[in-house]
């Protein structure tokens, strides 16, 4: 695919830190942008994934890239088995990791359109991905959708949207030898100067969340940029704004009045994914509640949730139990006729309440020729090849 005309992302003119050799220690941004995903509301529709895909990864070499993706849990996710690939920090030292290859991400397939539509065998040939022998057709961004875990009648699954965590201690920035990666002071967004990236891919090894992709056509690594040009224009990231479930909060965790601050710090119901990776993610998740398990005679076991708490602990750390307890307590309060600010916040009665100061409607921005409503490091008129 080619032709969206997205400029190469170069170093922005905003302040930054995290040059080569930076250990990431003490790298907290004063206005760190954070997001909270309420997993109780995620229905796995992939609208966030597609919104991101359409906006950012339609160029050559980006076919297999899904900066935003939703996977079914429990599952191997994308890249396949990413949770076991290493990376991150341990006791202040970077942990060597595995660089996921093209086959482990899978996807970005070519299909046999010619054969089906023009080969004269359309009635007997099925549309299928073409196997180029590189393993790409044996996995994909949502390969194990809805498989989940458990055994009937207690099988279970839930959806986990994932993107770059724009970590407070970004080990990818530390691992970049060319100094192409950096973390902006203003909002803590982790970016890469694509014109400086040399394609060494140490960032991909070091990132424990494996949300960095490699563009083999352009020899640069790429990852979610948290829609920074939209943020600069006061617009929420596309994944958040397009979410039909209204489950994605955007804002600063440092703003005492923001829903994100309350969910993360006040009620402590929003937790980072795999906190043991040590990078300080700024993407948080409200863990999923689940119905009660069933006994073999199909009577209800009121004391045991369908999703094993130990599994949720393996994802979100030991604080997940207190978070679930808090939500159950608030639910009980409302069921008893009471009020709950926490539940009111999670319900989101007003759409714009999700987005903090990023409530600008992108349709209202001046898009006239010669006007650049969002800021890139390079003029949009500049060719996209480096």
């Amino acid at each position, binding site marked *: 695919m080619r032709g969206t005309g997205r400029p190469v992302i170069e170093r922005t003119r905003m302040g930054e830190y995290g040059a*080569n*050799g930076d*250990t990431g220690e003490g790298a907290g941004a004063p206005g760190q942008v954070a997001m909270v995903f309420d997993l109780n509301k995620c229905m796995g529709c992939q609208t966030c994934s597609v919104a991101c895909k359409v906006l950012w990864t339609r160029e*050559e*070499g980006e076919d297999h890239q899904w900066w935003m993706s939703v996977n079914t849990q429990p599952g191997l996710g994308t890249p396949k088995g990413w949770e076991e690939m290493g990376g991150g920090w341990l006791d202040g*030292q*970077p*942990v*060597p*990791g595995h*660089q996921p*290859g093209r086959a482990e991400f899978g996807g970005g397939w070519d299909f046999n359109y010619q054969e089906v539509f023009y080969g004269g065998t359309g009635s007997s040939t099925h549309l299928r991905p073409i196997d180029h022998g590189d393993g790409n057709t044996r996995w994909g961004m949502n390969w194990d959708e809805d498989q989940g875990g458990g055994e009937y009648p207690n099988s279970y699954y839930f959806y986990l949207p994932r993107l770059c965590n724009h970590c407070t201690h970004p*080990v990818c920035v*530390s*691992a*970049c*030898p*060319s*100094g192409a990666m950096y973390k902006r002071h203003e909002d803590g967004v982790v970016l890469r100067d694509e*014109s*400086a990236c*040399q*394609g*060494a*891919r*140490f960032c991909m*090894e*070091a990132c424990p969340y494996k949300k960095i992709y490699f563009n*083999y*056509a*352009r*020899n640069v690594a790429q990852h979610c940029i948290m829609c920074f040009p939209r943020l600069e224009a006061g617009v929420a990231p596309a994944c958040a704004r397009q979410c039909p479930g209204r489950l994605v909060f955007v804002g600063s965790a440092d703003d005492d009045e923001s829903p994100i601050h309350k969910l993360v710090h006040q009620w402590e119901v929003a937790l980072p994914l795999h906190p043991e990776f040590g990078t300080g993610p700024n993407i948080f998740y409200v863990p999923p509640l689940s119905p009660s398990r069933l006994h073999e005679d199909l009577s209800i076991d009121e004391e045991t949730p369908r999703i094993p708490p130990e599994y949720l602990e393996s994802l979100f750390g030991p604080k997940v139990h207190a978070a679930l307890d808090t939500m159950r307590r608030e639910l009980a309060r409302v069921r008893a006729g009471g009020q709950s600010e926490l539940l009111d916040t999670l319900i989101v009665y007003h759409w714009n309440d999700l987005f903090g100061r990023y409530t600008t409607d992108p349709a209202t921005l001046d898009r006239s020729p010669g006007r650049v409503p969002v800021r890139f490091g390079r003029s949009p008129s500049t060719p996209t*090849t*480096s």
Partner: protein
Amino acid sequence: MSVGSLTAPEVGEEALDPDAGAWDAIPSEGVPLVPVPIEAQLNAYVRAAWTGRDYGRSGPVELALARHGDRLLARLSWDGSAVPPGEFTDAAGLLFPREPGTAPPVTMGTHAEPVTLWQWRDRLASQQGLPSARHLVSTGPGVFRPVPAGGEVSARSSRAGSRWSVVLAGPVEALATGSVGVAVWAGANAERAGIGAVCATWVEVAP
């Protein structure tokens, strides 16, 4: 390292081809390489990931130099990866000090003493819109940046079995100090950036 026999005679354009007969008449020297020291790697991740791993065993590189007008041509020949390339490709580079007295090239330059790097990488030319060689400045192991308006660097390569022959061509001014260095990255061993093999001392070129 002084290699008195290494000169850069004038040649025709055909010498851009690494298999051209013109190279048969030009003296060459075997340049031994050593691993870029792990202690010299500038970031903690690379040190953590590569300490105790074997790398930088490529070489020696047979090096010959020539001139074609205002272009310096360098032919490098060495035994590369015998196995099919995976994520990373074989690569080679020429290092040039920018000032006389620059520290040895074993660290690929330093922040205080940057060096010029002409780098060829296998398969790069087949990728979308990418040249086969790049003109870079290096300020340490793997700390490479493109040189704005640094003059075009081109490369042509050939392979016989596992043996690569590459001709890198660029502005002759790069050889102003009379010194040159060589680096090789073994793609099959995932060598890239500061993980590779480099000559420990500058190779002096006879005027």
